[in-house]
């Protein structure tokens, strides 16, 4: 492994300054659970790592009536241990609680999960359900990027060079909501999903679906939403027929592939099966 410098800036500005000075040879890092793997394999050979972990406030969880603001460096374990999140944003809680193992969750961050932009990112799929918005800071100032537009391809995000993610705003759905995330794996821990399925529906007072979100992991080059399935769910009651129709649409829309980890027919079938399971408990 090549040698690199390790910087621990104490503020966001300092971090941005370092990244600007060091240029493309520097890589921001949080828990390093993805970065380290790539350093070891040689896929990544930066001259410097800029750790965001010492920046105060970046690891916080800020809960309010409107929603949750996750510091980019909040760990999966912090989400897992939070009963407020478990109650109001259950799909996010389920996703973070199943990342790797407890040891990985103790250091791996939600922000890292998003910035790494793997198609299999568990937390990313769950956050797509909640219309999360990324707070980005850069040399030119700050901006908000909806998560829906954050992923550009495998390992590619909307972050411009020198920009960092500082927080993730997650609105709490208003109204009766059913949501869940199912991570399909071959063993019970320490495995990326063969398929990640997340669904959220929020109902109006009349029992009709006012908002529907369906998101999938490992069903395309990035974590993706399924607009067709969402449209099939929205606007009517949450009946078995409508849920199954939406599941069928999602299964058809999904760009699942044959790989040695799982065959396409199985993945597609699981989309069909898991959306009703999450919404109807069957």
């Amino acid at each position: 492994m090549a040698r690199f410098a390790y910087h621990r800036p104490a503020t966001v500005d300092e971090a941005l300054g370092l990244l600007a000075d060091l240029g493309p040879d520097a890589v921001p890092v949080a828990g390093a659970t993805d970065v380290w793997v790539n350093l070891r394999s040689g896929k990544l050979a930066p001259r410097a790592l800029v750790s965001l972990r010492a920046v105060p406030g970046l690891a916080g969880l800020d809960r309010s009536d409107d929603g949750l603001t996750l510091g980019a460096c909040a760990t999966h374990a912090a989400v897992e241990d939070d009963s407020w999140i478990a109650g109001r944003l259950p799909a996010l809680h389920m996703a973070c609680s199943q990342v790797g193992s407890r040891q990985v969750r103790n250091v791996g961050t939600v922000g890292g999960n998003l910035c790494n932009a793997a198609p299999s990112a568990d937390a990313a799929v769950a956050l797509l359900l909640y219309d999360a918005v990324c707070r980005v800071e850069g040399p030119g100032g700050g901006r908000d990027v909806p998560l829906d537009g954050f992923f550009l391809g495998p390992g590619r995000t909307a972050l411009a060079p020198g920009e960092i993610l500082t927080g993730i705003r997650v609105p709490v759905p208003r109204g009766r909501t059913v949501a869940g995330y199912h991570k399909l794996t071959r063993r019970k821990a320490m495995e990326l999903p063969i398929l990640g399925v997340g669904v959220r529906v929020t109902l109006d007072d009349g029992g009709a679906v006012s908002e529907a979100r369906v998101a999938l992991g490992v069903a395309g080059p990035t974590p993706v939403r399924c607009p067709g399935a969402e449209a099939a769910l929205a606007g009517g009651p949450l009946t078995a027929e409508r849920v199954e129709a939406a599941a069928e649409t999602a299964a058809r829309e999904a760009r699942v592939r044959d790989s040695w980890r799982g065959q396409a027919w199985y993945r597609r079938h699981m989309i069909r099966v898991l959306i009703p399971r999450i919404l109807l408990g069957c």
Partner: protein
Amino acid sequence: MSARRIVGGARPRRDAVDKVLGRTRFAADVRVPGLLHLAVARSDTAHARVRAVHTARALAVPGVVRVFTARHVPGVNRYGIIASTADQPMLAGDRVRFVGEAVALVAAETPEAAAEGARRVAVDYAPLPAITDPAEALEAGAAAIHDRGNLCFEQRIVRGDVDAGFARAAAVVERTYRTAVIEHAYLEPEAAVAWMEDGVLVVETSTQNPHYDRSDLGRLLGVAEERIRVVQRATGGGFGGKLDLSVQPYVALATWLTGRPSRLVYSREESFLATGKRHPFVMRYRSAADGSGRLLAVEADLLADTGAYASYALAVAMRAAVHAAGPYRVPAVRIRCRTVYTNRVFSGAMRGFGTPQAAFGHESQMDLLAGALGIDPLEIRRCNALGPGDVTVTGQTLGDSVGLVACLDRVGAVRDRWARRLREPDGVPRGLGVGAMYYGIGNTGVSNPSTARVALDPDGAFTLFTGAADIGQGSDNALLAICAETLGVDPDRIRLVRGDTARTANAGATSASRQTYISGGAVLRAAGRLRQRLVQEAAQALGVPAARLALEDGRIGPADGSGTSVSLAEVAARCGGGPVSETGGFDPDAAVLDRATGQGRPYGTYAFAAQVARVSVDPATAEVRVDGLAAAHDVGRAIHRPSVLGQISGGAAMGLGMALMETFGPGRDENLDTYLVPTTLDVPRVTPMIVEQAEPTGPFGAKGVGEPALIPTAPAILNALAAACGARIHNLPATLERVQKALRGEEA
């Protein structure tokens, strides 16, 4: 305390505290000043003629000291743990036969320079057709991977009138089963350091067999064994994968040729790429039973892919064949097991030597017969179970230590308890399954002795010298217990010198579940002789007949407690002041199998076991949960109960991996992120049960348990899955896709 409670007891192991505190020094922890770091350049092609190996660019890397290729190997560039099939070069000569084969060795001042040097070795290959399927390898006209052809070894077992058995059968089942390539995935990757000491090459390494290491290192270097000393360091698991040489030839060569110390530790990736695997099997089974479920005949044709080199293929073929019909009375068999060369990383020994694969076949067949005849799966096993005095498929008459029925009864009681809770109204498919096995202790059909020495030191303490490599399973502890029990002292009063070719005699490999039985037997005899000698010496000192004396708690005196006694230190002084030592040996009563019929006496004794698995299956996703595993093992006598229970639980975990997830794809899996082994969340609480049918030839009645622990697990889980899904899976592992198909009623 009375020393007589050591065997069968549960004292903490001697190595436990150091291991828990991280103080144990493994081979990778040995630091030698001024050493050379090594890196191996490996083939990236599966089969090719090597036209030239270009090392100039590697030598140009700053820090690189030497680059070695096949032409630098001073001795015979061919090794292999079974001498008659030894065929593996330490550095490829004119041919590479698998991706990952060593082509050149780079020695450098830093690990980075060594790695960079290895990257810069360029090989000029003339590609040859690569064969990846063993059936294809046997076809006429297939490219020959070795000069002697692609059939590495074939073992047949023929007995009785098979055709007559099938002719009068009430049920016949015929199926084909497949198992996967499996990686040992021990905690500690291969590691060795070497240096010269007074003209002797010292190699400290992680190994299951220091004496074998020394002899093949001697051949590779063209050096007399006396000039080489191999010391086994604390070893973090082996499971058969550290029987073969791995890193040892490279440190030996580098140090021998440069005179400088050297070190090589495989990364996990290199361990995956370049070291032995479990043979994948294709097994065609045909089994016949009469109306009451009694087996009449078994026909089994087993084809195993041994990859590029023979390694342990011969032993795997023999053992798989001997055990292919399972632990049953079968009057007629026609069994053939062939191990075949392909251009895949070589397969060698792995916990069970082919028996776990065969058990998947014979135990699936037993359930199919039971189903065809409407007989309970436990019942059909009970009515066929080998018992004392029965004759095996090789014509061997068993002795008294045959505890299979007891094992079946023990797991049967658990199964019946579980069966009551099986049908819950939640619609979740659940199932129970049984697996049974027998397993010959020690090497198949050959002499495989062990020798041990026990000395009384001048201070009145003892030293046990054994060549038996403790690879984490606890042989140190078991041998010390046997020694202590025999000498009437606390095990803490015994020093241990282990696994050092300069100081201990050959104990044979730590494999084949043999060290407790065989090296334990050697220790028992050595300690017994020493005890006799000391008692005689004390008898002279005390003027009391030896027959009336007892050695207890470090003193020798009248057994009835009357009169005076002498301390061991006094006895030692009487013997002349120096250490007093005795040697003992044991070689199980085994004899070579007939070449044509496989008849003979392959082992001195057998372990027996039965396990029951309880599984539930998600009806939609096909995710499997193993909810319970009950495992009853006839070990003869448990020398150290916690170790036996640990072996059973660990073996069951490994068997679960074989059943549900483990499958190695060359080129695909290079680490534990994609090659999945079970985690603690995947393994249920195992209910281990010890059955003790004492073996008269074993130390205190002991046999073995290391490999038996794993063998019935996958069969039990797969039988439970068949019960839960209603259709059977014939291919391991039972992936989500295969279970999904089984849930739909398709055979997978």
